[in-house]
């Protein structure tokens, strides 16, 4: 356990993954995450947890720190246009969490792919005010 923690700490603080020691990190959409990479590595769960309560209880649907928004950029189709599932090692969240040995149960309930993966169900990519705001550049 201690070993695991130190590995995680090593990756978080030195960015060791770039040198091949850490998990394979699938390529994301866009240039920059909603927070600096180092901040996300250390605190992404805080952001998601906070957003979770804000959204569920208060209806605050900002996308900056939402789980859906994570998936929008970080879960991308392969060459054949297929989106990885959370059960597969090529899934962004799964990959790192398996490496870090921390079980997450988000995808027991939540969709594990971005909206566009559900192309067949076009009703779910409807135009809404939120969608309009989603296209704003991230502050």
């Amino acid at each position, binding site marked *: 356990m201690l070993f695991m923690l130190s590995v995680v700490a090593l990756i978080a603080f030195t960015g060791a993954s770039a040198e091949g020691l850490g998990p394979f990190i699938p390529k994301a959409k866009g240039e920059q995450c909603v927070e600096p990479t180092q901040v996300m590595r250390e605190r992404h769960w805080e952001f998601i947890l906070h957003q*979770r*309560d*804000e959204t*569920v*209880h*208060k*209806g*605050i*649907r*900002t*996308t900056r720190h939402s789980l*859906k928004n994570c*998936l929008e950029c970080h879960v991308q189709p392969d060459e054949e246009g297929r989106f990885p599932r959370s059960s597969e090692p090529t899934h962004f969240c799964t990959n790192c969490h398996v490496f870090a040995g921390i079980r997450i149960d988000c995808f*027991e*309930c*939540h*969709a594990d*792919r*971005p*909206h566009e993966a*559900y192309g067949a*169900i076009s*009703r*779910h990519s*409807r135009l*809404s*005010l*939120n*969608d309009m*705001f989603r296209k704003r550049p991230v502050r």
Partner: protein
Amino acid sequence: MSLGLTRREFLQGAGAAGALTLAPGVFLYAKDPEAPVTDAVRWGLLVDTRLCQEDCNACVDACNEEHNLQDLGRPETDAQWIRKLTVRDPLGGRTISLPMMCQHCENPPCVDVCPTGASFRREDGIVLVDKHTCIGCRYCMMACPYKARSFIHENLTEQLPDAPRGKGCVESCTLCVHKVDAGENTTACAEACHKDGHQAILFGDLNDPDSEISKRIREFGATQIRADLGLNTGVRYQNL
């Protein structure tokens, strides 16, 4: 928004009227995604049972599709957020058909009994289960007078982005909260009923005296199911 106003100013200006017009005839209730919901609105449904057809299941089908409620071939444990109820008067035999779902009470028994506070009522009147804190004790199902809740008895897959659901938690009609928050001003069931030409289900703001739902309730009256319990339901029925 290109007029130099910030989004919030724009919405506040429009929000005073409660709605903004995107195109003639198309209204969107504007909710700033950054602002919490308030009790200035109270969302509800009005069901006219005279317009509801007994052989029509469009609202149920639409709900199942919207939230991907699958038929697992086990009717006793399969989730039903909305169901068609047939009510027959033994005296004379008059039969009516109506959709039954979470009644979004102002004083919900499910919220009272929930040990962790996972069952809760949003400021705008929508009763929800926070599935992150639901421990699956099912006391809310014992308490609900409308049998509106379902327990998820098995592992689920293929959930939709707007309808997270999973094993071991209790769930029920969310009044299509994802559509409400997106400003769509309707629910899957109301939409489907409208599309089928029956128009038996109307969604709207019960707090706004000028909303269609308020006007109709004012003019024709509407009843609560189990009004004797004093729950002040957000779903009202006409011609019961």
